[in-house]
């Protein structure tokens, strides 16, 4: 699997750490809604098909990425920074398949 990191370009799966389901809503830190915390912590939609999820480029720039990836074909349809990086433009020099 190749993941195209907005900073680093297409990189191998081995450089990334899966950080899980992005369909979860973390309650407000002060929330005392136990049920909401329980659902956030334990319950998953486990999508068949396009799945929103987090990955960290842990062997690279360490940014967290939000991706949509098919759980049937592993095809990745979108990758973006989770934390906005104002002013960052995706590098045009690195094309998929280009040498690093």
């Amino acid at each position, binding site marked *: 699997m190749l993941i195209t990191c907005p900073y680093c370009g297409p990189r*191998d799966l081995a450089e990334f750490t899966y950080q899980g389901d992005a369909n979860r809503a973390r309650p407000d830190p002060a929330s005392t809604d136990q049920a909401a915390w*329980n659902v956030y912590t334990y319950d998953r939609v486990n999508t068949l098909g396009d799945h929103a999820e987090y990955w960290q480029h842990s062997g690279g720039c360490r940014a*967290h990425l939000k991706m949509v990836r098919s759980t049937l074909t592993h095809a990745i349809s979108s990758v973006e920074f*989770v934390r906005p990086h104002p002013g960052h433009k995706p590098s045009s020099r690195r094309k998929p*398949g280009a040498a690093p």
Partner: protein
Amino acid sequence: MSPRRTNAPGRVDRARSIRFSFDGKIFAGHPGDTLASALMANGVTLFGRSFKYHRPRGVLTAGVDEPNALVTLIRGDVREPNLPATQVEIYEGLEAVSQNRFPSLSFDVGAVNQLGGKLLGAGFYYKTFMGPVIGPLKGTRFWMFCEHFIRRAAGLGRAGTAKDTARYERMNAFCDVLVVGSGPAGLKAAREAAGDGGRVILLEMDPLFGGSARWSGGRIEGTDAAHWVEETVSGLRELPNVRLLSRTAAWGYYDGNTIAATERVADHKREAAKGEPRQRHWVIRAKKVVLATGAFERPIVFAGNDRPGVMLASAAARYASDFSVLPGERIAVFANNDSAYANAALLREAGATIVAIVDMRAAISEDARRLASECGGELLTGHAVVATEGGKGLTGFKVQKFDAATGSLTGDPRVISADLLAVSGGWSPAIHLASQAGAGKAEWDATLQAFLPPKPAQDWTAVGTAAGDFSGGHGLDVAPAPVFEIRAGGKAFVDFQHDVTADDVRLAHREGFVSVEHLKRYTTLGMATDQGKTSNVPGLAIMAEALGKPIPEVGTTRFRAPFSPVSIGAIGAERIGDLRPDRLTPMHDWHVGQGAKMYPAGLWHRPAIYGAPGETVEQAYIRETKATRSAAGIVDVSTLGKIMVQGPDAAEFLDRVYTNLFSTLPINKARYGLMLREDGFAYDDGTTWRLAEHDFLMTTTTANAGKVMQNLEYFLDVYWPDMKVTLTSVTDEWAGASIAGPRARDILASVVAGTAVDNETLPFMGIVRGEVAGVPVMICRLSFSGELAYEVYSGAGHGQQVWDALIEAGQPFGLVPYGLEALGTMRIEKGHVTGAEIDGRTTARDLYLDWMLSKKKPFVGSAMMDREGLVDENRIRLVGLVSLDGRPLNGGAHLVEHNDPTALRDSIGHITAVCFSPSLGKYIGLALVKGGKKRHGTRAYVSDPLRGRFGPVEIVSHHMFDPEGKRMHG
């Protein structure tokens, strides 16, 4: 069968000779020979024994699809089993032995299994060996008794236990177009892609490029095919954007158009050249992949079709035309399609007599008829081979009239004498990589009677015969009569290596194992080292016939990596001798030089003890502990995780991730902090130092450093993106030395410049900056040992210099270095927790750290830590233990209430850490027991059946030494 070398041109260089051995006998061959061709050139026809019945087997194919001729190569102590002789290139001194035979290949006592042939049919094991229901052999014992012998009979070659001395290498490559296979279709695709200017990689399994076009005659683009290949390959070689890799088999098609391939760099050499690996593991990311993987010829299933001397027609022709080995003198052909006629012609051209061509079709094409008459010999259309004759080699075969439409045989069988029977049962495109690439199912082509590649799920195209296009080459129609089996009684093999017969397939049908996966699993069809390259389609066809369904309705199996077997060493490559990185502190060499015994701690190596000669581990840590508690000790703490938390929101960030408050921490002070997981369980602990208003240095446990960093980054990126905080791992930037003991302050005072270290300047949890040996240092007064203690941090590059200075300064005060054992002893005495107690299942309350759970703010885990399972009365909680029988305790021992060593029941908890406490003069420990504090002052028994230890202990507070902390505050 009497194969012999000819003078035909080909790949073999007869000018040079190579000596090699097979089963101890010395033979000669030539460069260009495979072990199969070289042995055949020497008249060898018997190559191996089959898996189950130990039947004698010869060579069926000339390539990767070989099921029969498996050998073990031996290089010194190193053994490489199960190699097809058709793929082994010979080199001077090559040593090969045959497999699965005893005592010898020509006389194998295992062949007695043939007598039990019907008994040993598919599913045989499932129906027997269950043994008696009662008595000494009940349960699994009888089966295990039988299994012992079955295991010895099974298996193929023998693996060595000696370390493989070869080197393996991993290589990443990137290209615009990857072409797999260098037959005409592959070469054309490579040429075209190269012309477009993109980067092209061309892979070829064989040592030579060109595939069968090199030897099978015919014309391409108006020129002689072999010549065309030569021209095209040399043209490609000259292009800077093309990389040609021969001896390289693509075996895995992974996501992202990632292809795994193995290059056999030095397997064909006596010795690898200097710096050269044996094999190279290629990981190729291609924008587009062109699969020009060719097709495999299929055998025909008929009685005695496994006898040495029965060979695929294309393989026989290739031996004759490419390897200059005539596999027989009097050759017959048995076919259901036209391609065999071209191969017959090649065999005749190489000097063989074609005695007969048996074609199961009543009518054949004009082209075929013309080729047959050129070949001479009898043409028997509408006939089929029904049996073969001979011992360990073919002497002849029987034919009968055959109706391809009904499968019926008529007339009297006739014997035809021949020493080779060249068989062609049609062609199967090599769709393996296409199938691996993704979701789609292979598509059945009724004309070709074969599966074509599925619809692409990744960016690939198939070309040439791999795509079912057989229009190139000899230009004959390869569409076969839809007949896969001649039913005439006798053992007719579908899967040669695993001895799966047509009757086995029908037995599976009768027992209901009719889906293709059930068929495979029940009969082991296609599960052998050749992975069913010759047997899958015939097996399916026989099942389809039994079911009365068309073949595609029976299904096809999805192909999985690898396409053909790959050395485990090659895939592991450089990591085999270097499984994980070694993390070494700046003072590592010093520790080793001082005779420290090193323990692995995650990826780190840490001193356990600095043993004096003759000292036991226990004596050493007791000495180190005593010296520290009475004078001073120094320990390397560089391995602690260190994370810089910086920015205007750093304090707020720490308040969120720690259970306690950090925003109230003054500058130049440190505080002990505890983190929980989201689910409310304890996660990690450590001290965090406030270096400036917006600068914090967080320390984590050695084991969790990486995980904590990743977790903090996750929270910052995903949940709190607005916080102005940056996180930087600085674990490797700082060297840390902790000096502890009553003389610690005196030592520091004598060596630190630029700051005082008295109680006022450097109070408990205070931080100062100064210099040691001219090196800037940061000193924090904090204590894990319970002593007056200081952590001295310097830049990692100066760690040894600072360490040396501290050691030297400590000399007059009796400073000793101490290791993990003494560190553990002192923390156990103090009741401090580490990973043995924060084991991912304990809560802050279990560890009596609830005083750290701030009620003033929410923090990670705060919402989840009060759920019923986490506050249960019966949870195991932290206590101290004192051995009452004066004997040592063991980590991992359990505790019980009853004083009965034989009653293994009712554990109330377990011991997490143990030591001899020099301060208390007793063996002590920490434990997690049900009820925790409530048991203080009570007696329990340590129960450790694994190590035969049982004895009384007293449960006490985990604060066993200096509970008021006078020493560290002093």
